[in-house]
């Protein structure tokens, strides 16, 4: 039975299914320094991201609440994990590489951080799902920028 969807294992890797079901960071932070919402009106995905900064202004912790598909929840959860300890600039750069990866499926200069996000690369074969993967990032960047709302591209 399950083999019907074998070709989908690229997109729905075990880690995605698992994170989609049981995100580790899927809650609002008790205390936070910044927050923003992301909204993809065409498909109904919504996410809110909360960020707490360390004294050196790097990201200490990220939490989120998402109503969305497995891809967007897993992406938010992996994002929360990967950006920890990063500066704003660093996070923006990471998002740029991530966006390239989910659009093209390749990741020319993949470092350890990107490897953590690599399970999402399968999304590039489903162009309309790319924005599911990037929506939480848009919200995070908006929070770091002090904007309240982000919408997906």
């Amino acid at each position: 039975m399950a083999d019907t969807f074998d070709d989908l294992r690229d997109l729905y890797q075990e880690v995605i299914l698992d994170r989609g079901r049981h995100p580790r960071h899927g809650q609002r932070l008790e205390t936070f320094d910044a927050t923003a919402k992301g909204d993809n009106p065409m498909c109904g995905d919504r996410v809110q991201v909360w960020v707490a900064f360390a004294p050196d202004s790097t990201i200490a912790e990220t939490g989120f609440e998402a109503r969305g598909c497995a891809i967007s929840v897993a992406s938010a959860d992996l994002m929360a994990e990967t950006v920890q300890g990063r500066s704003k600039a660093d996070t923006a750069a990471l998002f740029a590489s991530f966006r390239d990866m989910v659009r093209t499926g390749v990741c020319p200069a993949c470092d350890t951080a990107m490897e953590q996000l690599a399970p999402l690369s399968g999304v590039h074969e489903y162009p309309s799902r790319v924005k599911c993967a990037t929506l939480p990032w848009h919200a995070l960047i908006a929070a770091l920028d002090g904007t309240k709302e982000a919408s997906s591209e």
Partner: protein
Amino acid sequence: MNVDDIRRDFPILSQTIRGKPLIYLDSGASAQKPRAVIDAMVNAMETQYANVHRGLHWMSERTTDAYEATRDAAAKLMNAGDRAEIVFTRNSTEAMNLVAHSYGRGILKAGQAVVISAMEHHSNIVPWQMLRDAHGVELRVAPITDAGELDMAAFEALLEDGKVGLVSVTHMSNVLGTVTPAERIVQIAHAHGAKAMFDGSQAIVHRPIDVQALGCDFYAWTGHKLYGPTGIGVLWARRELLEAMPPFLGGGDMISSVTFEKSTWAQVPHKFEAGTPAILEGIGLKAAIDYVLGIGYEALAAHELALTDHALARLGAIEGLKIYGRAQDRGGVISFMLDKAHAHDVATLLDRQGIAVRAGNHCAEPLMRRLGVDSTARASFGMYTTMAEIDALADTLNRVREFFT
């Protein structure tokens, strides 16, 4: 009506998707096109094309005849009393904007109200909001019941103060499949001095529309859902209303005379058709109408009823699957959700098996809010849909659920 024969008329149905035969269950978003429509458009472009209404030469005369024959076909399809009551627009959306603009700003007065329902498509919400904000017309929303039917008592109550100038509701919901009781809606509207308009985008695909029997004042639909080309829609309106309404767009073909000081308008329906029309699309739409009438609504409706009953039974039997909308009178559009999987994930997994369904808010955000969801998956049927395709959908949904458990 033989579905196999019909399928042979639709070239696209022999396509494969990611190696699997296409199972197209997204006809509610846009229907596929039969050979007759394709041929009519090709034939026009290859043998008989020029601009219409203006030329004295052979090609222009013939193209005008072909294009204007679409007006007769549309009038016949809707049983309009007068071909001049058929106005061509780009799609339903433009038809409703036309009414919101020309009837709304031109005839309704600030302080009057427009009633829509809680299950409208954005196309039948946003134009009225824009009218409200620009023109001071109140917007009232008739609620729906938990079964997804229009709450008729609440609807009637909204009209009681006599302020309502226009009721504009869907004739069939693109999310719930609900068919609304159009005659009663018209009676109630008229009893309270309001005009009645229907968004027939979905309804006209599934059942015969007789605007004279309905007694309504405006009826809008869109060609691409009725197996016709994109780029053309129809607004039917009573002649006296069209005559009273100011024009919407200005330009060529809609004038009687132009001086810089003042222009006067052409007779209806041309007053509402500015610029070069969608000529080729009109010609294609005529072929679509002829094709639909050739099969006959009786056969179409019977086929659809059988499909819908079967689908409701098969999907209803899937564990953890919830169907939205349980109206008595309904068409072949079914929205659903699986408990374990988000609608987008469902759509992607189905797509991998060649099954095209839609997932999202279906341009009906307020209805989603009413249903308490962000999105649903939706299967919608066309004349070419088979029982086997519905079985494939149900079987695959069972596997999708396992995949996400």
